């Protein structure tokens, strides 16, 4: 059996779809952020797989993934700061009850 690129892309695709499902159904902000991380990670895997199987002599996909990981870390840190701030002001982080911007 030969493991080609499709064998890596299909788990990544399922992971992305789980992220989509979670992002739509979850109501807790942190759970939504976790779904977002799943989607980002699936895209990272795609970058690496395309780089490895189609252009093995270059490193573009690897660097895109490296920068995507750095940006995901920054985004998560900032989003969690905002979530904690909202929690301090509104005492919950349920997106259905947060419909006023100013408390």
């Amino acid at each position, binding site marked *: 059996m030969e*493991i080609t690129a499709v064998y890596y892309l299909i788990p990544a695709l399922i992971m992305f779809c789980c992220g989509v499902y979670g992002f739509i159904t979850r109501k807790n902000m942190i759970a939504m952020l976790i779904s977002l991380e799943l989607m980002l990670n699936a895209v990272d895997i795609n970058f690496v797989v395309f780089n490895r199987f189609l252009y093995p002599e270059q490193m573009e996909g690897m660097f895109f993934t490296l920068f995507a990981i750095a940006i995901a870390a920054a985004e998560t840190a900032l989003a969690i700061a905002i979530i904690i701030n909202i929690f301090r002001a509104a005492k919950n982080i349920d997106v259905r009850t947060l419909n006023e911007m100013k408390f």
Partner: protein
Amino acid sequence: MESVGSIILYFIVALSMIVFSVMAVTTRKILRAATYLLFTLFAAAVVYFMLDYEFLGAVQIAVYAGGIVVLFVFAILLTSRPGDNTERLTSRSRVMGAIAALATLLAAGYALLSRTMVFLAKPAMEAPTMDNIGTAMLGTGEGQYLLPFEAVSVLLLACIIGGVVVARKR
């Protein structure tokens, strides 16, 4: 032809990636969702190791598993009591989510499976050495990444300042 060991490793990784990502979005305890996310990220790191990108796998474990998941756990413990269940999903939002996810799966899966012929077996490659990675990251020539590297450092600085400003007590 792959060795038997790498095929077995592949199946373990692919299966755990699928199972843990499904569980991360369906479990009702939020702390467990973060734990399943951690396992999924580890599986992704193993994929990077299997594809000969050792540096990337190490970064994945250090930044995602070491940094982001710890942040998640801290935020979860600050904002909810452990052991709390999230509310049951209404069937409407579940149907909407399932439709969106299945539509994505069908569209992307069809596009992927109709072009399986494009992909050949894994070509031989030298794993990129630290020398190559460092030169490519800190060079200014073609295919080198000094400018994005500096931009990311400014972004991280802005993120630190923004995080402190947003989260501090007034």
